[in-house]
């Protein structure tokens, strides 16, 4: 049973779904609550950095009242074309992830490696873009402690970036396993699981990109 193909092993379970795949789906379900909470915190504070007083709430007037962040207009902070390219890169990495899974499932090691490497590279480009963006914002004077926007923005997108980084590590680990001959057609489930995680992280960015970047208050 040790090396039985994934499909054969799956039949042993009551639901017909492989244990590990079910685990991954459950993990992703709970991750929805994780990112949901982060994004909810962002939405609760959305716009608070530039609203001098909440309506009718005089005690709240001690809020920082600047519409600017150290002289930089907040509205001009985002570079939408740049982040759009980042988002596009990450979405395309989902396509290459699908292609690499398809390749290994039909036993095409070379195709698998090429597409997996492409996916990892696109992921690295995305993380690099985020690092650049964070540096840029920091130089313009926005940091974690500047205001509520800085706090919620960096923490929400930062946790997403950390997830992408973990994903890249998983992909590179799979690549090493493949080169060592430990990842054949029979072990394609590992690639499928990594793929599920990868697509999930992509979808999260679609939400983050829409809510934080495109729908600014």
């Amino acid at each position, binding site marked *: 049973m040790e090396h039985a193909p994934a499909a054969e092993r799956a039949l042993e379970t009551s639901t017909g779904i492989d244990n590990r795949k079910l*685990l991954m789906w459950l993990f992703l379900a*709970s991750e929805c609550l994780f990112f949901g909470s982060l994004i909810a915190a962002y939405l609760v*504070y959305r716009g608070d*950095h530039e609203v001098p007083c909440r309506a009718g709430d005089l005690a709240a007037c001690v*809020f920082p009242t600047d519409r600017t962040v150290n002289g930089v207009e907040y509205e001009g902070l985002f570079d939408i074309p740049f982040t759009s390219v980042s988002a596009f890169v990450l979405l395309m990495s989902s396509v290459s992830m699908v292609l690499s899974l398809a390749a290994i499932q039909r036993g095409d090691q070379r195709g698998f490696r090429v597409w997996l490497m492409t996916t990892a590279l696109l992921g690295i480009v995305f993380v690099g873009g985020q690092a650049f963006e964070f540096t840029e914002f920091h130089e313009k004077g926005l940091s974690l402690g500047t205001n*509520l926007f800085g706090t919620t923005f960096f923490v929400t997108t930062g946790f997403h970036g950390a997830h992408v980084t973990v994903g890249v590590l998983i992909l590179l680990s799979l690549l090493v396993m493949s080169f060592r001959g430990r990842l054949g057609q029979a072990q394609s489930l590992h690639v499928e699981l990594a793929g599920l995680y990868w697509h999930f992280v992509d979808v999260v960015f679609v939400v983050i990109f829409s809510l934080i970047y495109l729908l600014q208050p």
Partner: protein
Amino acid sequence: MAGVRLRGPVYELERRLDSARAVESVIGLGVSLELRDELLRLQLATPNGSVLDADKYNQLFTMHGTTMIFLVVMPLSAAFFNLIVPLQIGARDVAFPRLNAFSYWVFLAGGVFMNVSFFTGGDLLKGELGAPDAGWFGYAPLTLNQFSPGNGINYWALGLLILGVSSMAAGFNFIVTILNMRAPGMTLLRMPLFVWMTLVTSFLIIFAMPIITVALFELLFDRLFNANFFNTAAGGSPLLWQHMFWLFGHPEVYILILPAMGIVSEVLPTFSRKPLFGYPFVVISGIAIAFMSWGVWAHHMLTTGLGTAANSAFAISTMLIAVPTGVKIFNWIGTLWGGSIKLKTPLFFSVGFIAMFVIGGLTGVMHSIAPSDYQQQDTYFVVAHFHQVLFGGALFGLFAGVYYWFPKFTGKMLSEGWGKLHFWLMLIGFNVTFQPMMILGLSGMPRRVSAYPDGLGWDFWNLVATIGAFLIALAILVFIWNVIVSLRRQERAGPDPWDARTLEWSIPSPPPAYDFAEIPRVRARDDFWHRKYVEDEAGRPVPVVAGGAEAADEEEPEEESGHGIHMPSPSYFPIIAALGFPIIAAGLIYDYAFVAVGAAVLMVGVYGWALEPASE
């Protein structure tokens, strides 16, 4: 025959070892906590108490709540899941044995990490203890650096994050085990109630834990990196913490009580010799409670000024959740009704559970009435209420489970005489402790105070409550004595000492390492019972004649059949991975270099785990 092994090297993955370790850890943490709790009650026994100063009192009550919830009731429930669930669904193990071991070691790491704070969180040389001191609910902004300097809160937040990893790992594992590892014929609606409640609880865990995880991360970002989540000076809102905490915290309440409800739903049918009354209703009301538990969190916040509409909505949803709970209680009573009752200790605890939980539930409905809650908020009435459900409820249910399943895993019965003494001492001690708190609360005594002046009419009932707390301590001693005496007894319990209904009783006590020599085929709910009894015309159970057609082909395991069964190979990696977490956490408090060290340890554990040959 292989006996059950309750001791073994740390790399062994036998799941009973994990449970035994968990139970030992809980007893260790619980007893040390019990001693500290007696200090709390001593302090409040008389007006102007001088046993503890306010600072130490705050630390002790904070650690009391945190420990009882995260380090006693949750791991005890998890130990039951681990022992019972595979047996009740006819599986040989959990789905992921290494994840199971990981879950235990992470729990231990988190528990130790948090308790170390007593010594390392403050300046011990000046006689200061450094444990967290902002309550188990950790309300912001009290938890921010400004109001809680020192490292206590950091230990608290990081410790809870570590424990969250443990709970989540266990939650995933049990859901996959229950959904995927059922024996042939064990359909969802044939599963024993305890398995159902484990499933529901596990879902609550994997959905509730991420929320507190985010809240704790936000708190840590505020404390360690000057973020503003709860910093009111920058516009941060303390209410955000309360919403997130209680959005986790209310499902958490059901994470604590549903396993106990599952245990009681197993014990009552066995000792009434009747099937559970209205099985589908009990299952569905358990699921309904879980769903509704997501819509009641703001009843913890009725006095925070959410507005009339929100208060009304949450008041109504809170009253509604009493409906499925009431359904369960009536079904339990219906199970007892007309049964041929065997008055054994597990039944005593189960009936105690029902009675105490009803009082707890009804006082909960009182809280849901918003205007009335304005009077009760932050008084001892609330303290009395939730101890009524969590002690009178969850803990009584867990003790019922201990008495019920003890013979299955040790092969020895717990003494009935000591058991009943334990029960009565506990029931009396419990009521003597917590009913006075109802009176104190209604007469206005605030909770979380380390001392109160005399002349307010609170002296007498506080003294009574303290006496009750010592009765509880005595009951715990009787229980420990019972375990010691019973383990030394010579006579064996036999595979089915209670004449029970579910599959775990069809195999020897203690079960062999592979549990089932042959995976059972399940044909009905309470399958094992139906193998033992048929019904006569009047519906009374009549024993199946020995050697009957069904019994013959299934009940005699072949002697050799255990040998070809695959058992998990031992692994060091779960414990290595678990060790990474407290190192990272300590690094965040003291020196970031250790974060790197901890991360490296974690990576070694994870990669070793992923790459070692295993068949999970």
